């Protein structure tokens, strides 16, 4: 290849090294794939994969252990932050992240989530909030919006009967342990870039030993929402974002300057 040709060619887009070259099982239009990619891109940029242990949870992301090139553990339903605590406490030199859905993190695993955050456990949590149980068939999640139809709220979620949604970032914001808490979404390229910045800050928080970090990602579930992918993105922006505002809730001192 001539020098001239080399100058003409440069890689502008490729699969991140931290992502396995395999087909994912996620439905078309689901934003899990983007979130996985962002995790992998940040792992690449910070050269984390060789010293990372990722914790997959139970739900649609149960197979996340197949998609990252780092060591992975599949945890019991709701227990990912407890498992991450076990790894991180005995091996503080490792980078440890969990990847959990809303049912896993905010329903069955809420105690583990709150206490890991309260302890300031030095781990990073990627929290996918799509307001529904995808894997099990579209049941009500702890984050299902009032009025939203699911297989267990067929007439729409009535808070008087089925309770109110939980705003996890807001709830954890009252604790002393978190070093970084942010809510992002992936509905357009600008939001994807913002989300990636948040992932990076969350990971940096752990690398700097600042404490618990979590990024809540408002995500779509076209299959269980019963919408085409584009409409699902619009529905998210029109319905979820007003209920779950996009912002940084906690940013530890040492992270403010970092982008």
């Amino acid at each position, binding site marked *: 290849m001539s020098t001239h040709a080399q100058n003409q060619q440069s890689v502008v887009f490729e699969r991140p090294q931290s992502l396995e070259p395999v087909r994912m099982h996620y439905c078309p239009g689901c934003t899990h794939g983007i979130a996985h990619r962002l995790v992998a891109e940040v792992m690449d940029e910070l050269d984390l994969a060789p010293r*990372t242990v990722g914790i997959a949870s139970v739900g649609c992301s149960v197979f996340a252990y197949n998609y990252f090139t780092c060591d992975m553990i*599949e*945890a019991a339903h709701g227990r990912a932050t407890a498992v991450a605590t*076990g790894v991180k*406490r005995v091996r503080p030199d*490792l980078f440890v992240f969990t990847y959990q859905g809303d049912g896993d993190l905010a329903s069955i695993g809420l105690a583990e989530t709150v206490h890991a955050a309260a302890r300031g456990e030095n781990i990073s949590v990627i929290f996918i909030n799509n307001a529904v149980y995808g894997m099990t068939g579209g049941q009500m999640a702890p984050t299902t919006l009032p009025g939203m139809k699911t297989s267990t709220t067929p007439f729409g979620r009535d808070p008087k009967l089925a309770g109110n949604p939980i705003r996890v970032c807001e709830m954890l914001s009252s604790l002393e342990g978190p070093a970084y808490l942010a809510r992002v979404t992936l509905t357009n390229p600008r939001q994807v870039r913002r989300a990636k910045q948040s992932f990076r800050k969350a990971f940096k928080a752990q690398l700097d030993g600042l404490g618990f970090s979590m990024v809540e990602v408002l995500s779509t579930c076209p299959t269980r929402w019963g919408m085409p992918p584009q409409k699902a993105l619009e529905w998210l922006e029109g319905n979820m974002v007003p209920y779950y505002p996009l912002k940084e809730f906690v940013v530890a001192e040492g992270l403010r300057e970092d982008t």
Partner: protein
Amino acid sequence: MPIPRGERILMRGNEACAQAALDAGCRAFFGYPITPQNQVPDYFAAHMTEVGGVFLQAESETAAINMVYGAASAGVRVMTASSSPGISLKQEGISYLAESELPCVIVNVMRGGSGLGNIAPAQADYFQAVKGGGHGDYRTLVLAPWSVQEFYDLTRESFEIADRYRNPALVLADALLGQMMEPIVIPDDVVDPTSLPRKPWATDGAQGRPRNIINSLYIEALDLEEVNLRIQARYDEAAKNEIRFAEENLDDADYAVLAYGTAARVAVTAVDHARQRGIRAGMFRPISLYPFPSREIAALAERVKAILVVELSLGQLVEDVRLAVEGRCPVRLLGRSGGIVMTPEDVLESIAKLPAGSSK
């Protein structure tokens, strides 16, 4: 102050158990308060930092066993302890540990049950301990001490067994063994955890090797069966190598009393009393409850006229004894429940009522 070694000292069972774990190279403990095992976490809280290990009081038993799962995944020797209701809460995690082929040690200082029960000594978690306990097709490898010295020795040994078979090991004690103080000798030798062989399957960073995955999810039935058969093969191996039991006065015995743990402490006194009365009785004490000394008990049933099973539960151990005996001799039960410990006189009375049968 360092613990005196190589000489007789007075120690509480729960504390001996925790010291044994430290001496076995255990460098992580996750637990949650519950009586009558509280001196175990207290001891770790006080002494784990001396050896550079991790002690963490978890928010629940459920969280504690999943922290064990994480630490075991990272390849370190790790333990949790609890008592009956707390052990029930840990069962989901123990099932995951077993299916993911992760070694760890779990201590159950049993109390009276069911439900909240009470905090008195009992053996009512026998089925839960030896038949699996949680969901699925697995067992825990179970050792049952009957003294503070054995509580130390068997806790220590459980770490070796757990690593050897890549499976959770369970130390089955009770409120009496946990709370009482007895003289014990703590040996001089301790395990340096850095000297232990590396665990090539551990998720401890994939630097310079292909990634490792710790998992218990196998969507294809054939894959799952293959894993279960591999685990079962280890249990078969353990049945060949890890059978432990003790015998007292059985050489010429007409009657055998069969008991483990605290019940065996009562039974051995009753056997002495029976001998004084001219009844030729002896005691067989299983120490490994899973794998169970079935072959040895079958051989015993060929020699004696009858077997009396003495347990602090209402007919759990006796089922495994009957499976082992297969009708070779009559098997009778003396069981108390709810935290009641029978007296030697109760046992003697039951020995006297055993069927006369014919000499063998």
